[in-house]
């Protein structure tokens, strides 16, 4: 099967996707929950962008808003999500979430894999039928061709004995195999962007290593960009080119993976890196934990959202204004008053 190589057709300098000033709010009885608040970033072609942060930081909602699948009562209030597609420019934020246009993009141009492969696969359809459904919907293929392609995809994601597996149900597969089947489905229409939301969090370390290796290989082969969402800094270091650190709906730092791990600037990033136990370091030392817990993003006080937990917080500055995201060195953006 020959997959057209989209990257050659397009200008390399134009990013694949640009998110500009995105705001996604949830209107709850208790108040307005600002899940994503003024987030901007670009994803280059063939790049892997990691989004890292603790629970409630808005990393999943950011991904969902790109596909326009933010659950009710969430609304994309403001902002643009620009997809550059064969010379065309589509603003995903303006599309009707139930409309024809977004449905042509969802599952074709942009696909997603989830944390729980058991709940995201249908229990009453065979693996093969589920993958074929996507192929038949988005590609001009006959049943036989689609089945042929599905077998090939299953083989490519390293499922042994695809001729047997294609007619099995998701409960017959182990966690690792299910995640492989999900990846096969996501890549079957040759997307230009794959969003992976904690795809290895539910898996064992040895299986996680297999899946990470597989994703790296497939990314080389298919040439898609990946948004990789995780809370695991080890996984981020393993697979990402660029990293976006989020805290309570805001981007606090954005830089190359090497910069994030070797020259972190934001106190939150520094705190996160210090709070994980590192293998190979002398055991039994105290961890430098960040004090406090992530607050609920409801009715947040003025000023920097990390103010209460920050070591470097300065009264009169940090609790008055919200720092904006500024580029400190080339490609390294941080939002903190320390770097003004």
């Amino acid at each position, binding site marked *: 099967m020959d997959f057209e190589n989209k990257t050659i057709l397009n200008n390399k300098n134009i990013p694949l996707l640009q998110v500009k000033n995105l705001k996604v709010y949830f209107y709850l009885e208790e108040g307005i929950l600002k899940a994503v608040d003024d987030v901007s970033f670009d994803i280059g072609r063939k790049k892997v962008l990691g989004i890292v942060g*603790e629970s409630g930081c808005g990393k999943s909602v950011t991904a969902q808003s790109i596909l326009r699948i933010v659950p009710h009562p969430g609304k994309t209030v403001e902002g643009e999500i620009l997809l550059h597609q064969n010379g065309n420019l589509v603003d995903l934020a303006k599309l009707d979430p139930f409309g024809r246009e977004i449905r042509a993009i969802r599952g074709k141009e942009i696909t997603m894999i989830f944390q729980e492969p058991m709940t995201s696969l249908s229990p009453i359809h065979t693996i093969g039928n589920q993958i074929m459904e996507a192929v038949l919907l988005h590609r001009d293929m006959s049943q036989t061709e689609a089945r042929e392609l599905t077998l090939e995809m299953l083989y490519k994601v390293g499922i042994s004995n695809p001729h047997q597996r294609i007619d099995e149900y998701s409960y017959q597969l182990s966690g690792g195999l299910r995640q492989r089947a999900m990846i096969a489905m996501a890549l079957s229409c040759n997307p230009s962007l794959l969003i992976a939301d904690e795809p290895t969090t539910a898996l064992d370390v040895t*299986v996680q*290593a*297999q899946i990470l290796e597989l994703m790296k290989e497939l990314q080389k082969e298919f040439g898609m960009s990946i948004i990789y969402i995780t809370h695991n800094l080890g996984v981020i*270091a393993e697979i990402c080119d660029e990293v976006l650190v989020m805290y309570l709906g805001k981007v606090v730092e954005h830089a190359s993976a090497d910069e994030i791990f070797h020259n972190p600037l934001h106190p939150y990033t520094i705190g996160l890196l210090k709070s994980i*136990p590192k*293998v190979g370091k002398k055991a039994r030392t105290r961890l430098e934990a*960040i004090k406090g817990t992530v607050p609920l993003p409801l009715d947040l006080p003025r000023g920097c959202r990390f103010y209460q937990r920050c070591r470097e917080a300065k009264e009169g500055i940090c609790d008055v204004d919200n720092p904006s995201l500024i580029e400190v060195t080339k490609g390294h953006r941080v939002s903190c008053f320390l770097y003004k």
Partner: protein
Amino acid sequence: MIKKSGMPLLEVKNLKKYFPVEEGFWRKTVGYVKAVDKVNLYINEGETLGVVGESGCGKTTLGRCILRAIEPTEGSILFRLNSDIIDITKLDRESLRATRRYTQMIFQDPYSSLDSRMTVLDIVSEPLLVNNLATGRKMEERVKDLVKVVGLNVKHLKRYPHAFSGGQRQRIGIARALASNPKFIVADEPVSALDVSVQAQTLNLLQDLQARFKLTYLFISHDLSVIEHISDRVAVMYVGKIVELARTEEFFLNPLHPYSEALLSALPKPDPRLRMKRIILSGEVANPVNPPSGCYFHPRCKYAEEICKKEEPGWKEVNPEHFVACHFAKELSLKGVI
């Protein structure tokens, strides 16, 4: 077994837990899941033994068997209480209840392990009431102390668990475990459900409490970096068996079992400059209902030879305090962490 530093607090000998697999209308037993199979280990007083392994390897079952929260099939669990040594597996109901106050457990999920209809006061005081340790005002004082010790606000005693975050709930669980002044605590994945920054706080708390109350931990986790951080010694489990047991530094620098080597290699390191070729194990953890012949790890092991398919390797002390179950433990030179 050699005990380097005095008498161990707990010694587990040949512990087995087989769950029957039943089939058909008459529930005929057709086989067994050997969840814990011939496990030998010891834990010294004040020490933390980390148990690491992938899902389904039997680490939780091992922890629960040691507390006799589930009945072991065979084996003995010797627990030193003051100057007596008692075998937990042989105790009758009453004496088991009496020893329960010395052995406690911290659970993984801070959401399901606390009764949502009990206040913090109810939850933390329950072990005191059940064991007749304190009542009335004395009990309330003790609960307040405990709540302070784990870093919660004393004003929140009348609140219900839903009002607390995951990290705070885990602290309530820890206060409950400490209430009866235990000597030995089984901590079953106590930080896996927590955010990174809260995980660090909880690990620090567990270490502080250990030093303060001379606690002994059996710390169960799937996360090797957490295990390295908190443990004095490490036991690696694979399909119901312990395949390696060693001091933490020794284990991480010089692992002797190929499975340990693969686990260490699979761990993603938080540094993009350390990206390297990993040992990728093929396949997944063997099915414990129908494990492979010989060494359970041989289908995934790159060093496997004929003997591994036929004979189960014995449990050998290769270096002082370094036990391993592998036919080639002495010949192989395996890679630890750099």
